[in-house]
């Protein structure tokens, strides 16, 4: 294959040399042994980036004062508001609505749809376009115990074991019990699931699952979910009003401290708008674009933790926000694909991880954090990583095994998007392996919520990646698409109930923002920037040095 350099093509031969023997074992169902629970902990402590103490610091102010967070997250939270509160006229609302949903990915759209069904007028604020989110990028699938040999009981065990027993049990129970309802809801909305001719869902294993319960739609499950939900929301545009390119920059409380709206910011005209709402859902997604510890990320351009920042200033509590998921298989070659997610489905279909000598070194379907630790160990400690022409390190993901195991054409059929993304660079992944290394993938923690997506601030609900507790300190594949829909729907439901009984009319306030700014000063934090940052800054140094501000 011309896409690989001569050096790499030579190394691929080593992987090819060991393949027949590996195939024979795989056909017999024999696996490379998985780590024991003790080994998992040891390897995580030694190799997982979350367990490194440098690059972290304690929060100095706010409801979670003392919580240790990655430097990037802590300094974002403890930056001054980007809003000049004095310049905002709260007496006149530019928009009045029953429910304000902030964020228009999977969770926000699900919340909007449910609230609309319950009779609410919904306004959705989103930073980019409707659907621009990590939801759209989720590839491999969505879990749900829909098969006869499975049940929410076993799904729960997988979720909580994968999360190293640090999950909020009530959230894990809500997630797994609602899962079949979500699959059914999506089917009713006309989602094209992968099915057998009888209509039975095709299901697969994911890392850390004991049952095959991964439902999929090719390798663009999240994109299919998002476009279906978005299409449905557009059909209801009489009640669901979408404001694109208008992110929220601060929440608004009323004089009793209840959530009562937000200040939006039009990225194009630079105007602000005041929104008064009876209830607010924060569904802004994760923090991948903060590039924690400098890692590349699989995340969407808008994943800058805006919701965390706003909710924290309003007094919401955070949890597990120091826990970051590194997806074990991010592409590192070719350079154009760096950070690109290689779905776990590739391993679910039987592809193994191999070192520079073409040898297996781990069970391919460990929970994600453990799998990442295994890859980092192999490259940094054992020293058997493959080096790319741009000096990156990684290991092989032996995708040609898939066609050998499941029949010619399986890769093209089951992984069409991945196939195209590599074919562009003359790499046929059904014939040659991919080079991968862990990449920043998911914010495990976030705003603390209960099983009904309530944050602890009256009228403020939260769902999706921005919220924490569901997955504890590690999430399994296929549970984030599920999470955004389960808790998005629950947020919509409870927000609707709340909005119907909420008293309105008390004065709007941004005092919490002013107070937070004062706290920053009092704590002696010399913050240089403002937040939320809204978009990452990728301007190169040679441009920055010459920009006239």
């Amino acid at each position, binding site marked *: 294959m011309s896409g690989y350099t001569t050096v790499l093509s030579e190394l691929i031969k080593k992987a090819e040399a060991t393949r027949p023997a590996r195939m024979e074992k795989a056909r017999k169902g024999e696996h490379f042994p998985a780590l024991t629970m003790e080994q998992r902990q040891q390897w995580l402590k030694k190799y997982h980036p979350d367990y490194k103490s440098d690059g972290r610091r304690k929060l100095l102010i706010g409801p979670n004062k003392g919580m240790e967070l990655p430097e990037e997250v802590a300094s974002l939270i403890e930056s001054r508001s980007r809003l000049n509160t004095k310049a905002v006229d709260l007496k006149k609302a530019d928009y009045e609505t029953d429910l304000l949903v902030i964020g228009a990915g999977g969770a926000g759209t699900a919340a909007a749809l449910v609230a609309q069904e319950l009779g609410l007028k919904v306004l959705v604020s989103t930073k980019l376009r409707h659907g621009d989110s990590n939801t759209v990028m989720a590839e491999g699938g969505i879990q749900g115990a829909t098969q006869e040999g499975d049940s929410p009981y076993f799904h729960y065990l997988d979720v909580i074991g994968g999360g190293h027993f640090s999950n909020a049990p009530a959230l894990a129970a809500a997630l797994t019990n609602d899962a079949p309802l979500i699959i059914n809801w999506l089917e009713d909305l*006309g989602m094209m699931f992968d099915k057998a001719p009888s209509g039975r869902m095709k299901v697969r294993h994911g890392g850390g699952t004991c049952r095959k319960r991964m439902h999929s739609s090719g390798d663009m499950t999240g994109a299919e979910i998002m476009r279906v939900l978005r299409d449905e929301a557009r059909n209801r545009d009489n009640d669901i009003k979408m404001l694109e390119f208008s992110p929220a920059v601060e929440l608004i409380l009323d004089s009793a401290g209840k959530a009562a709206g937000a200040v939006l910011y039009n990225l194009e005209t630079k105007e602000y708008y005041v929104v008064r709402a009876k209830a607010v859902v924060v569904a802004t997604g994760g923090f991948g674009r903060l590039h924690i510890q*400098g890692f590349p990320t699989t995340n969407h*351009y808008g994943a800058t933790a805006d919701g965390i920042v706003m909710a924290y200033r309003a007094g919401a509590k955070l949890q597990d926000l120091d826990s970051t998921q590194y997806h074990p298989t991010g592409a590192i070659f070719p350079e154009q694909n760096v950070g690109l997610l290689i779905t776990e489905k590739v391993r679910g279909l039987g592809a193994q991880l191999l070192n520079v000598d073409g040898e297996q070194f781990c069970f391919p379907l460990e929970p994600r954090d453990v799998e990442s630790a295994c890859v980092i160990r192999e490259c940094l400690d054992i020293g058997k990583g493959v080096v790319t022409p741009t000096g990156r390190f990684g290991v092989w993901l032996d995708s040609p095994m898939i066609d050998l195991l499941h029949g010619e054409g399986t890769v093209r059929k089951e992984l069409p998007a991945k196939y195209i993304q590599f074919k562009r660079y003359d790499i046929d992944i059904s014939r040659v392996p991919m080079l991968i290394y862990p990449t920043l993938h998911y914010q495990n923690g976030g705003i603390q919520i209960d099983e009904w997506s309530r944050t602890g601030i009256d009228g403020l609900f939260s769902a999706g990646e921005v919220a924490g507790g569901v997955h504890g300190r590690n999430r399994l594949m296929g549970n984030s698409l599920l999470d955004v829909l389960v808790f998005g729907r629950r947020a919509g439901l409870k927000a609707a109930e709340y909005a119907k009984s909420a008293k309105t009319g008390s004065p709007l306030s941004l005092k919490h923002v002013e107070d937070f700014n004062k706290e920053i000063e009092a704590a002696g934090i010399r913050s240089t920037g403002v937040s939320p940052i809204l978009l990452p800054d990728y301007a190169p140094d040679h441009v920055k040095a010459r920009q006239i501000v």
Partner: protein
Amino acid sequence: MAEEKKLKTLATGDKTIPPEGAKMIPIYIMGREYVVPETLTIMKAVEYAGYSYVRGCGCRGGICGACGTFYRFIGDYRLRSGLACQTVAEPNMIIMQLPFFPANRPGYDLEKMQSAPHEELRRLYPEVFKCVGCGTCTRTCPMDIDVMDYIALMKRGDLKGAAIKSFDCVMCGLCASRCPAQISQFTAAMFVRRVYGKYILPKAAHVKKRVDEVRSGKYEKMLDELMSMKQEDVKKLYVEREREPDLAEAGKWMPKDTKNL
């Protein structure tokens, strides 16, 4: 020391590391010349030139459809297209991104179809049937979808075929921007896929059954039991889980312990 060097190479964020000695090439962003290292995608080249995206940038991974782009090479009459995040910038490329394109998208109620699916398609998107068969959409599609072919399938009433053929669509709108018959192919395809998913693709009976079981509250007691257990006991259950074999047939395999199903 080798280890230190290795660790350093990881800390790259989203900035590209051009291979050593990368050649600099001229590109023309909306006609203006910039010089960028070769091998970058159009998106990263535009950022390297100093632009900061608001529109025209989304997932940066080829699936969201935010960055549909047209380009020509100096001296070449052909108009080309691609996604900015997936297409490598080449010398003398004249680039224009299309961050938005107005599309026709009539609303509909999927629950209350007024007539047979293909009749609904004709009612909502009569323009589909005016396709002149020029094939520009197919040549334009950055996902290599045979757009004209799925439009032809729609015209023939083969909604299944059209749904499957259009499945990879990222809804960037490039096809619609070039259509002489003024068809919004990608919104018509969205309608067809949902109709196919809801009314034509067979329903999963096992999902319906499980939904009834969940609604009856069957699993709440089991979950309550797990939630109130001591962590060691949950751990034990976790470790002892029986793993369904990879190649087991869906719906046929049953675990030895069927108590908590």
